[in-house]
């Protein structure tokens, strides 16, 4: 009975989406061109993140399949040591895509035992964006880009340390 109830229950995410669609509908009645432009921008943005979502989906399958709690603990958890920090920094720099697309995957890793400090380090290092380096150099110069990138990596470690003091890992 509970299962049937749960199946019929609308998730919080769907409720949120419905509220947003109502806002869109009301705004469309008042000014259709604004909604048209907003929807076009949304479509362009969403199309760009589809490949990332597919990669994340496949990664989640692999994480569920191969990253047992023991393995996560060894590489990204309490037993990971300095190597864990290095993995978080390097993967943060190498993985491209919007951070929100990574939250579900990181959530799974956190459930498996990934430390809060390493989550913060990974997320902070995502700001060293290798594909965008030419644009940054074009607008702000090479020195600015190099100095900013180095500070991001340095502060990511400080970020992880402070997070580990302030937000305790779930046992």
């Amino acid at each position, binding site marked *: 009975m509970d299962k049937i109830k749960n199946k019929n229950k609308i998730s919080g995410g*769907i409720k949120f989406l419905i509220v*947003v669609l109502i806002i869109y509908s009301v705004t469309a009645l008042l000014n259709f061109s604004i909604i048209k432009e907003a929807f076009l*921008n949304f479509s362009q943005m969403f199309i760009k993140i589809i490949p990332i979502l597919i990669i994340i989906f496949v990664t989640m399958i692999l994480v569920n399949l191969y990253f047992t709690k023991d393995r996560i603990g060894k590489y990204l958890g309490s037993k990971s040591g300095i190597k864990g920090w290095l993995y978080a920094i390097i993967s943060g720099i190498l993985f491209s895509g919007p951070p929100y697309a990574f939250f579900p995957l990181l959530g799974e890793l956190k459930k498996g035992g990934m430390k809060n400090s390493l989550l913060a380090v990974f997320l902070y290092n995502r700001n060293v964006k290798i594909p965008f380096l030419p644009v940054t150099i074009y607008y702000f110069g090479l020195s600015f880009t190099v100095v900013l990138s180095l500070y991001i990596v340095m502060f990511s470690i400080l970020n992880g340390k402070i997070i580990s003091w302030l937000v305790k890992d779930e046992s």
Partner: protein
Amino acid sequence: MKSIDKQPALKMSFLKALQSLKNFLPIIIGMLLLINLINLFANSYYSKIFTNNSILDPLIGALAGSLSFGIPITSYIVGGELLKQGISLITITAFIMTWTTVGVAMLPLEAKFLGKKFAIVRNILNFIFAIIISILVVSTLTFLYNG
């Protein structure tokens, strides 16, 4: 034999990932729809919010970046254009840094998956770091070029 053993595990992993996708996809779609609507009103105000005050502007820049949302490349382009308009590099750096590291709009999503306390502490910390980094970057560049 090993591949046969893996089959149920693979199916379970696939179903688990599918369940996660079903949970987060409506939130991501809703967030992106909402943000693209808000951005239409916000984008035209960027150049009007700065005051040419060297203390206040980096704070305004960091605040504007925190509330903004979009692909990171947009922040570099907006930042580059603001720089051409005479806005200070410290302000622009704070703006770019918070645009990519502080996500007020995505805070509910981050809290849902990584925990409320983690999301709030991380975003506050990133806001403070953005201002510190912007000052350090410009100071370092000034030191490098002027000795």
